[in-house]
Every structure is written in C-alpha cells, then in structure tokens.
C-alpha cells in the first residue's frame, strides 16, 4: 500500500481545544478518504502552543532551534497539510502566523493544503477566505476549495441552511485526499547539497 504523510497543525490555545478537535476530525476524515484511494496516511499532529516560545525565538534570532526543528521538518516533508487556527480579530491568531513566518521560503510550494478555523460565532467564517486563504496563496500552497469553519453551534446541530459540520469535513477531506493521493510532494533541491555553480552566478544567472 502506498503511504503519504499528512502534517496537521493546530494553533488552538485552550486545553482541550476546539481547534484541535476540528483538526483531529479533519485528519481522520482525510485518512479515511485516502484509504478509499488505496493510500495509507501517516499523520503527524503539531500543537503550536507547545512551541510558542521557540517560534518567537525563531523569528527573533532567524534560526530554528532543535526543539522546533521536528515541527518545521514535519510540515516541509508532508505530502499534505491541514492547517487549523482559532479566529482572532477577524483573522488567524499570531501563533498560527509565527509558524509560517519561521518556514524557509518555498516550503509550501505546491503543497496540497486544507484550511480550517474555529470561532465564537459563524459570522467569523469568512476569515478563512479573507485571511487564511490569501496567506496560503502567497506561500504557493495548493489550497482545496472547501475551507471548514466550525462555530459553537456546529458542535451540535449547526445553523439552519448550513450543511452539517461532518458533511463539510468529509467534503474538504475528500478534496485534500484527491490531491494527496495523486502524487507525493517532491522536496525542493537542497542548496547546500546542490549549490548553483559559480560560473552561472558570474554570468548573472
């Protein structure tokens, strides 16, 4: 059976966290959808809260400390990414953004990505489209069309006229699984292993 790696990033603050709960449900649904493609998922979940200080240090010092390295490597090495944030002030929270600020340029190039968020009211749901999706587009991630927002009522019956949370999760997970099953992400060339030959630099290439 083919195996694909999924990195699941949760920027939830509380313990337990509804953001983490949503992340786990998305991971489980994606795993199930991949199984239908005959693909086994290897899931690595990252709680950013546990790395909050290391993330700030990385931004201040410019380098990733050993404790944060597995997180960065998990995201960089994944065939698919599930990124989930609570909604703070109409956007992702600072903790979520710190991770993406700490990644080397190009880390998310072409990476199939599912974005999701939690929030105190369904009125925040477009934060995914106005804030998270543009961030991921800038980073050249391939974001699936369905983004999943979970408001408090979604953990019960949901709001009238909105598909139930499990259906939205299944739809987004299916979209991500289609992309992830199609091809593994190929790692970018390592500039320390394969530098641009100096003759090329001299010619201004």
């Amino acid at each position, binding site marked *: 059976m083919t195996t694909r790696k999924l990195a699941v990033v949760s920027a939830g603050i509380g313990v337990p966290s509804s953001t983490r709960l949503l992340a786990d449900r998305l991971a489980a649904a994606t795993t199930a959808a991949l199984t239908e493609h005959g693909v086994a998922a290897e899931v690595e979940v990252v709680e950013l809260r546990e790395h909050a200080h290391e993330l*700030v*240090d990385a931004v*201040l*010092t*410019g*380098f990733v*400390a*050993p404790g944060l390295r597995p997180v960065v490597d998990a995201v960089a090495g994944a065939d698919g990414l599930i990124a989930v944030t609570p909604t703070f002030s109409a956007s992702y929270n600072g903790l979520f953004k710190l991770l993406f600020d700490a990644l080397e340029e190009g880390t998310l190039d072409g990476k199939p990505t599912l974005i999701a968020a939690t929030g105190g009211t369904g009125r925040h749901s477009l934060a995914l489209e106005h804030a998270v999706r543009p961030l991921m587009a800038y980073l050249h991630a391939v974001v699936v069309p369905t983004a999943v927002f979970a408001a408090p009522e979604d953990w019960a019956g949901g709001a009238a006229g909105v598909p139930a949370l499990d259906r939205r999760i299944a739809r987004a997970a299916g979209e991500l699984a289609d992309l992830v099953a199609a091809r593994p992400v190929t790692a970018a060339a390592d*500039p*320390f292993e394969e*530098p*641009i*030959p*100096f003759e090329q*630099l*001299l010619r*201004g290439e």
Partner: protein
Amino acid sequence: MQFGVFSVGDVTPDPTTGRTPSEAERIKAMVAVALKTEEVGMDVFATGEHHNPPFVPSSPTTMLGYIAARTQRLLLSTATTLITTDDPVKIAEDYAMLQHLADGRVDLMLGRGNTGPVYPWFGKDIRDGIPLAVENYALLRRLWREDVVDWEGRFRTPLQGFTSTPRPLDGVPPFVWHASIRSPEIAEQAAFYGDGFFHNNIFWDAGHVRRMVNLYRRRYEHYGHGPADRAIVGLGGQVFMRKNSQDAVREFRPYFDNAPVYGHGPSLEDFSELTALTVGSPQQVIDKTLSFREFAGDYQRQLFLMDHAGLPLKTVLEQLDMLGEDVIPVLRKEFAARTPAHVPNAPTHESLKATRDKEEVSA
C-alpha cells in the same frame, strides 16, 4: 591558528546603568580594544563597517590606518567590508593604501550587509545583494591583479584604461575572506576563488554552520584549490568570563537580555547551548572553543566578539586580559596538538609573497 577580536562598533546603552557612550568615546574604545588585542598576545583585530546609527565604524581604513601606526604585529581586518554597496574601485584603493601603511598586516572579510535602507542610500537594491557581491568582487580582483583595467558590468560605471593606485604592496593583493551566515552562493564564491570563508556562528546553530562550512570545503576541492580539509575557514565566537562561572552569568545576563539582535528572545542558557556564545569560566571558554572543530573541521581563524551590547570599556579590557592570560595560550597549545600537519595556516602577506616568488622562479 590566528586568534583575534572583531567589533561591530555599536553604540548601545549600558543596560545596568542606562549610560550611553558618545560616538567619540566608542570610537576611541574600539581603538583601545584593538591595541589591547595585540598587547595580550592575540593576532587579529577586525572592525565592522556600518552606515547607520547606532554604529560608528563607517570608515574602516581610517580606523585601521590609525591602529596600524600604533601596533607592530597585529593583523588588521574587517568584519565585514560591504562588497555590495561600497564601490569596488574605492575598496581596491583604500585597502592597497592600508597595506602599504601597515607593511602588509592587512586582510579583508567581505560581506553583503543586511540593512535594507543602506542599499538605496548608496544607489543599490538589497534584492541584488548576491549579484552585487559577485560582480563587484570579480572587478576588485582584477583591479588588484591587473595594472590597467578595461571593464563593463551591470552595477557600475564602465572603466577604460583604469589603474587603481597604489598598486598592492609587493604586487600581492590582500587575502580575502568571504563571510555569510546563510547564503550558499557566498560559500560557493569563496570556494571558486580559493579564498577564505568565515562563518559568524555567534548567530546560528552549529548544525547550520556545519552545512555552510562543509559546502565551502567540498566546493573548494571541486574548484581545484586542494583537498577540502585544507580550505581556509574562520569562525566567530562570543565570550564573557569570570573565574567563577556563576559570577560570569550573573554579570553578563542583563547585557545578553537587552542585546541588539537576540535580546528579549531565547534565554542566555538556551542561546549558549545552540550558538558560539560562552558565558562562564575561562576553562568553559576553552572547552567550547575547542569543540568548534568538531563541526567545522580544522580551521585557521577564531575571532571573538567582546565589546558590544553596552559593556563598559573597562570590563572589555579586563575580559581581553583574561583571554590573553588564561585562554589563548591554552587554545594555541591544544589546537596545535589536534591539528594535522597538512592543514595550512591562514595566508598572510608574507606567505602569499613567498608563494608568488616561488611560482615566479619555477615559471
């Protein structure tokens, strides 16, 4: 093995007193540090080059020329010379002039500079950092090696029939180190020319330093300058010592916590574990410095950052005395014992001249 001191030249308030030195005091303090570096038996003093506050050393050859006149042995260098925004013609002239005044006790470390606005202030663009470093250095080399240069490039007015004066002392250009913390292109540049490569591992973790230095060594061999383990490598370091390591930590912590660059970030303990910072006893400094060769291989130059973050001059001079008395003699002995005989010393004016003379005889 060369040991020395490199100074950023920052004017920073002393966080323990709130006192900020004047520019005049800071400039004279840098000179005092350089003189002390020779007095305590070290080999190299290197000054930074900056064109924005809170830094004072905008005119390195003025300072180094003055230090040259007041020292006998000390090798004068830079950390770094801005190969991107300085005119390569002026670098060629300034450092050749300094070579003559200092009787050859000169080399340079080239860097790009990471302060965005400095580039436009000098008519350049930071996004051209690498192409500027590549083109400007290619011209600089020709200006030192060819008496008459015709040249045209992307970034500078063309030259027709130009002779850079004075010519390098004895016709031998100063040795050049290329410094970069994270750009593989610069390690590649140093390797291509067979120049030295300096990694300021004060700011980066050992794993990354290893990758950069290994890249340089491998490519040095690829370009035919000799085996990788004979490439010329320099490293940074940063120390604060007291006889009792707890005293060192207590005294240095406020300077660390408020330091430009890494202040208010990682703890002193975490940062010491990851980078080339050592705060403790002289023996700890010796042990840590000796460990650098485990990730960088046998190297030729070790520079220490001593006078920054608002440390008072009196303290810095005490630190230099401790380095000279308790640390450097042991390091010289221990490095000599560990370094295989085939690993060369860093080139100096004398060694480069001798090599040149030998090649002329055999040619």
